[in-house]
């Protein structure tokens, strides 16, 4: 509490203190994270910057179009899924350099399983093929991750070394598995998990999901309020609750409108019309993509991981270990076992990400996931995960992944070549962490 006792005749207890500005007061009452606001601002700046640059340099702003933003959302999915797990790894003061290789390895295992093994066992095009494949891919990732975690926790080998070894080891293993061949095409149902016109849920389902999400927000706000009332804890002002609810809902519905305003390409519509026997009207048929399946997977993973990190005992332990490993041990937490679980979870998410990445390409190549570890770590760090441990959020990491992907997509759209892309991404990472250090220094 700041000292305002020298102020005469204070009438209300919740009044804004004199030295507190409008914005600070607003943020405090709505409990919005300043960092979140900063990241959203940076993201908007990047988006508008690329769009305007495109308009000036190429005469056409391609960035802020439904088509590009829809693609952006699909391309973010693979890195975003892994970044949510990387948050927990970095929060406990570890690192995982092997995520790209685990992704490549489990994608290769899944490809061999669905193309060479399962068709012989249960028949080509069997509807269970994709299910078995996905479960196997996630399990393989989890096993590899658990093994890394065991080496880190019980044999006390630094995570940097274990996962650096893993980076080479699993890349080599996936080469050995397929002798360097690319395996393609994959199972038809499986490949829908990568997105594309048929791998999207369409306009109606998107609206339903959007409305369900809005109701979810309302339910969360009401539940939180009644819980705090029950124990007579201080409540957020009512207008702040309304504000958060409305802004959240507006963002969700805006996203629905966006994904619904990107139609199927003409060629796909023609194929579809021929296959289903409907006639295409004069002006063309407008079929919306709606949410792509990989984006929905990312959203579900994001919600589940946020729940895990903030609402469960496991999540509490992860953060406590990151804040003070010795204290966590003295409090009776089995820190080694928690470490194994964190790496296993990271591996499982790599497996899931491998599903999305290989399904999107409809093939498993030997180089799938190369350099992903760097983008994943960058996404988590840009999203506010501190390498000193103990601090990080899941939504931050997903936003970080969107920032990274926006930079890449934007540079491709305006025609920067690969060399300049690398230079920019590298610089952005360093500058972002520097800004973060400044922010933390000021917040103390």
């Amino acid at each position, binding site marked *: *509490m700041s000292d305002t006792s020298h102020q005469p005749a204070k009438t209300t207890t919740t009044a804004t203190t004199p030295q507190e500005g409008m914005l600070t007061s607003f943020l405090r009452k709505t409990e919005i994270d300043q960092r979140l606001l900063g990241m959203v601002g940076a993201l908007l700046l990047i988006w508008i910057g690329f769009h305007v640059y495109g308009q000036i340099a190429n005469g056409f702003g391609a960035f802020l179009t439904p088509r590009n933003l829809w693609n952006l959302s699909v391309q973010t999915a693979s890195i975003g899924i892994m970044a949510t797990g990387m948050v927990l790894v970095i929060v406990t003061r570890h690192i995982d350099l092997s995520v790209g290789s685990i992704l490549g390895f489990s994608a290769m295992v899944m490809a061999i399983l669905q193309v060479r093994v399962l068709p012989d066992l249960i028949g080509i095009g069997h509807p269970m093929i994709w299910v078995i494949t996905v479960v196997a891919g996630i399990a393989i990732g989890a096993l590899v991750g658990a093994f890394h975690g065991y080496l880190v926790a019980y044999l006390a080998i630094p995570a940097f070394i274990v996962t650096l070894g893993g980076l080479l080891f699993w890349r080599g293993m996936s080469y050995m598995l397929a002798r360097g061949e690319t395996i393609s095409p994959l199972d038809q149902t499986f490949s829908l998990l990568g997105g594309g016109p048929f791998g999207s849920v369409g306009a109606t389902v998107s609206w339903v999901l959007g409305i369900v999400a809005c109701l979810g927000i309302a339910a969360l706000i009401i539940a939180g309020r009644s*819980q*705090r009332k*029950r*124990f007579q*804890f201080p409540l957020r002002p009512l207008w702040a609750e309304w504000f958060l609810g409305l802004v959240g809902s507006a963002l969700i519905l805006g996203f629905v409108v966006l994904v619904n305003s990107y139609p199927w390409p003409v060629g796909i519509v023609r194929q579809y019309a021929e296959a289903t026997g409907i006639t295409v009207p004069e002006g063309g048929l407008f079929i919306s993509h709606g949410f792509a399946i990989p984006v929905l997977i990312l959203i579900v993973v994001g919600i589940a991981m946020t*729940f895990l990190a*903030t*609402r*469960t*005992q496991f*999540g*509490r332990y992860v*953060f*406590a*270990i*990151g*804040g*003070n490993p*010795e*204290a*966590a*041990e*003295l*409090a*009776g*937490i*089995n820190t080694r076992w928690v470490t194994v679980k964190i790496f296993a979870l990271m591996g499982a998410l790599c497996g899931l990400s491998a599903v999305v990445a290989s399904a999107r390409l409809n093939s498993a190549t030997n180089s799938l996931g190369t350099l992903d570890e760097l983008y994943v770590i960058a996404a988590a760090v840009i999203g506010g995960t501190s390498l000193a441990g*103990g*601090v990080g959020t899941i939504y931050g990491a997903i936003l970080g992944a969107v920032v990274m992907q926006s930079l890449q997509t934007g540079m491709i759209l305006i025609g920067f070549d690969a060399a300049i892309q690398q230079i920019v991404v590298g610089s952005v990472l360093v500058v972002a962490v520097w800004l973060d250090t400044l922010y933390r220094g000021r917040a103390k």
Partner: protein
Amino acid sequence: MTMHTREAGGTPLVALTDISISFGGIKAVDHASVDLYPGEVVGLLGHNGAGKSTLIKILSGAYKRDTGSIKINGEEVRIENPRDAKDYGIETIYQTLALADNVDAAANLFLGREKLTRWGTLDDVAMEADARRVMGRLNPNFRRFKEPVKSLSGGQRQSVAIARAILFNARILIMDEPTAALGPQETAQVGDLVKQLKGDGIGIFMIDHDIHQVFDLCDRVVVMKNGQVVGTANVKDVTKDEVLGMIIAGKCPAGAVPGPGAVKD
């Protein structure tokens, strides 16, 4: 409940017998024996490096002893890690406080023993309610329940560490310099708390460098030097100067029972 006090010749609540531990060839604790009765406060005294904290960490499960036995209520127990110690009702307030700085007070109080809802999720609201209750008893002015403990003052952090130890109905409490970061008023509060816990029949081991406070709060003192016990004495039977002599020179006065570390003359 019958009180097995020392005078009545009952079973000690804790009996540490012949405890030794070495780190890299250096005997940090060398055949030390200490006991503690219900409702008793035993002060552990000695220079830095005398082995007090190490001995206490063996009881709290942070270190594994090389030799010796630990008995609780007369029964031999296995304490391999902090979880085992907590299962026997042994709670510790560490010198370093051992708080996770990045989470809030309630999360620290319940660390390792979280309250869960019926769906198995963290019951943060219930934990905060309990935290408010116990902190209200220790430090009525404490309001900062939502902030990470890193942003709290030294005294507030210390009260969080103390609150954690008394929250779970400890039978045996270990306090390693519990008032090191506190001002006079808070120190007095801790003194009152110790007397109150003592009245509840809890046995307390207290490490403290303030000899006046030790004489004020403790029933007995155990002095250690170079990992060995110099002697044990009722505070009524010795003077402060005699205890200082035990700490500095290892000389055991007439009112004390000499241990293996006493200087023979």
